[in-house]
């Protein structure tokens, strides 16, 4: 179906169902309950982040998962995409489509230039070069190209690039009738429009922007499946496996890796464009190298080189970031209130550094644990769990790999 094998198609349909039903899935608790405050995630901005970062990591996985080239500078493309889209909203109009298209084009050109230089080296050198490029882009965006007093203020520096009432917007209006900024829209459907469905105590929000991002993520996901199963995808895996053999088989590795780099750069630009489309504000911090590191973390958490891993990793990271940062001492005391006071205070003191503003620490530890013990990420964890519960524990990884390979080597219908 759709040029996919049965298994891939099933996977795609599962993801499609998850995206479509996310407002339900992510809001399991009735509105206003304390559990809802903590664990519900069905808010438009959060759901948008799930799918947008999903796109970003899907793209990153095409590079890192297939070719093994670890880019530490992917946030640069995200940032470039964000700025491009905002400029489109400033100059052209508030329809998101031109902004998204431009963000992809600009990020693609950017990736071509950076990739051309960085891919002269492989391994650690490549990682460091991409890191340096990203940090240079950050510096450019933060100060060099963002001086509000100069005539060439591309990024507006520290404040970030934002819409102004004086922007031309040649195809739209500079200001709305009531003198405020116009909102981003998709041919008239405002991105922030939501339909709220009340079922008993439950409140479900269906946001236009989320569904636009969701559809784009599904398309991105579909394309990534096709790439994984294509001759091109196989060549990328061959690059990871043995570059020497590639060269002596008459294959030029350079354009393959460059193409993968550009494709994943375009994905990142698309994600940046979507971020700006949902909230037309672009800041340099999106390009900081810690942001690049977070992309790597999401990819690893999910499972590198797998199809579904990036989506899981992005969702997991965003969800837990959201929950952990909401837990403060008050919440902890409430949760542990049933314990004797001394124990309660002690536990709160112990847990305190790991939650609230300390969520970075928890994610950092989790990341290390995954790398050390579970290099395949959540996908491998799920498989191991499944094997423990249902399967034959003696089944070796080699067999599992052979299975995966057979799955790969089954022709599409």
């Amino acid at each position, binding site marked *: 179906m759709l040029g996919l094998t049965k298994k891939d198609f099933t996977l795609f349909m599962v993801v499609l169902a998850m995206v479509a039903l996310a407002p339900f899935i992510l809001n399991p608790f009735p509105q206003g309950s304390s559990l809802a405050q903590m664990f519900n995630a069905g808010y438009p901005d959060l759901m948008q982040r799930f799918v947008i970062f999903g796109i970003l990591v899907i793209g990153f996985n095409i590079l890192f998962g297939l070719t093994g080239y670890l880019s*530490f500078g992917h946030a640069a493309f995200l940032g470039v995409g964000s700025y491009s889209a905002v400029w489109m909203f400033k100059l052209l109009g508030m329809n998101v489509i031109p902004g998204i298209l431009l963000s992809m084009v600009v990020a693609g050109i950017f990736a071509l230039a950076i990739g051309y230089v960085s891919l002269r080296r492989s391994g650690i050198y490549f990682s460091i070069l991409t890191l340096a490029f990203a940090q240079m882009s950050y510096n450019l965006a933060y100060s*060099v190209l963002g001086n509000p007093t100069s005539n060439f203020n591309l990024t507006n520096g520290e404040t970030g690039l934002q819409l102004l009432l004086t922007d031309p917007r040649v195809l739209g209006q500079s200001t709305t009738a009531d003198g405020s900024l116009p909102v981003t829209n998709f041919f008239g459907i405002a991105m922030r429009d939501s339909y709220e469905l009340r079922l008993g105590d439950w409140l479900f929000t269906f946001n236009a922007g989320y569904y636009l991002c969701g559809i784009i993520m599904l398309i991105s996901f579909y394309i990534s499946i096709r790439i994984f199963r294509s001759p091109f995808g196989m060549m990328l895996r061959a690059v990871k496996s043995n570059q020497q053999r590639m060269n002596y088989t008459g294959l030029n590795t350079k354009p393959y890796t460059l193409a993968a780099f550009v494709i994943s750069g375009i994905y990142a630009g698309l994600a940046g464009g979507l971020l700006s489309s949902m909230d037309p504000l672009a800041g340099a911090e999106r390009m900081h190298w810690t942001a690049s*590191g977070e992309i790597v973390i999401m990819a690893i958490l999910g499972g590198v080189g797998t199809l579904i891993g990036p989506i899981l990793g992005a969702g997991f990271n965003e969800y837990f970031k959201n929950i952990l940062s909401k837990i403060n001492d008050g919440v902890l005391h409430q949760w542990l209130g049933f314990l004797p006071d001394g124990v309660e205070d002690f536990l709160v003191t112990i847990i305190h550094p790991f939650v609230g503003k300390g969520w970075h620490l928890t994610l950092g530890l989790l990341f290390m644990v995954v790398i050390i013990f579970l290099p395949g990420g959540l996908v491998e964890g799920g498989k191991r769990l499944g094997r423990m519960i249902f399967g034959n524990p003696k089944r070796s990884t080699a067999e599992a790999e052979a299975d995966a390979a057979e799955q790969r080597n089954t022709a599409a219908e």
Partner: protein
Amino acid sequence: MDQIILQFLNGLDKGSAYALIALGLTLIFGTLGVVNFAHGALFMIGAFCAVTLQRILTLSTIVEDPTKTDFLGNPAKISTPYVESWFGPEVGATLIDWSVPLAILFAIPIMVAIGFIMERGLIKHFYKRPHADQILVTFGLAIVLQEVIKAFYGANPIPTGAPEAFRGSFDFGVLIGFDPNAIIYPYWRMVYFAFAAVIIGAVFAFLQFTTFGMVVRAGMADRETVGLLGINIDRRFTIMFGIAAAVAGLAGVMYAPINSPNYHMGMDFLVLSFVVVVVGGMGSLPGAVLAGFLLGILEAFASMNEVKAIVPGIDQIIIYVVAIIIILARPRGLMGRRGVMEE
């Protein structure tokens, strides 16, 4: 002319920091074959060693002084650092004043211990894993270390002063025949440069003139062969890791007065130190030192107003631009050897 000398001097202290971090990175890379993304965190921990010692020394008892009252009429509370009550006010005050240099003694065992624990507890298990995994696990460790520091010391920079004697500036210009105040250079930066020179010299001397260093150098050149000679290279490499950690830590200790320690200073320096290592040539110790000073000085020159007037913002990106040009022209870096990291 005076401007040029001034910028040259300004570049020295930052260049010293780059050189020291890059030196440690290269030592670890050359001996263990691991790119240590947590190396910046070691620099940062070093700086916080200085903060910690200062805090320990200023730990105070609070006594009520019945002879004085505060504005509410209560007896005034006077806090006296323990060291002052133990060693007498003058010695105590001197100790507190000199807490940053003293922190060197304090930091060496701590940094070496951290280095040992890192290598034996974590990095050792990653020698046979792909390079990407090594990068990732040390990156994770860097995040964890900086977040731990943040949890203990907060997110704000902590000013940590140099000893009173070094706080002023030195009119360098007068010495070489320029007008007074033309070339003013803070004393502490001179101390930092001298300190860095001593450390770098010590590391090179250690590698050059001791048997231990000879084995390590041989191991850097060809690990397998040295292993075949029946020399326990792994233990030496662990010690080397401890030394590299100490070098980074000391660089951090002494940098505390120049740049108030904050939890992300390690990451900030790490990115540039990587660039330094790449420019110098992966695996080349002299290359790391040379490139460190070169880029530090270059950065200082680029931040001159005259230069910025021609190319605005060049100071922010000069290091990267130079690095890219060098990589394009000389992929192995300034002093890189063939066959390092070329699979």
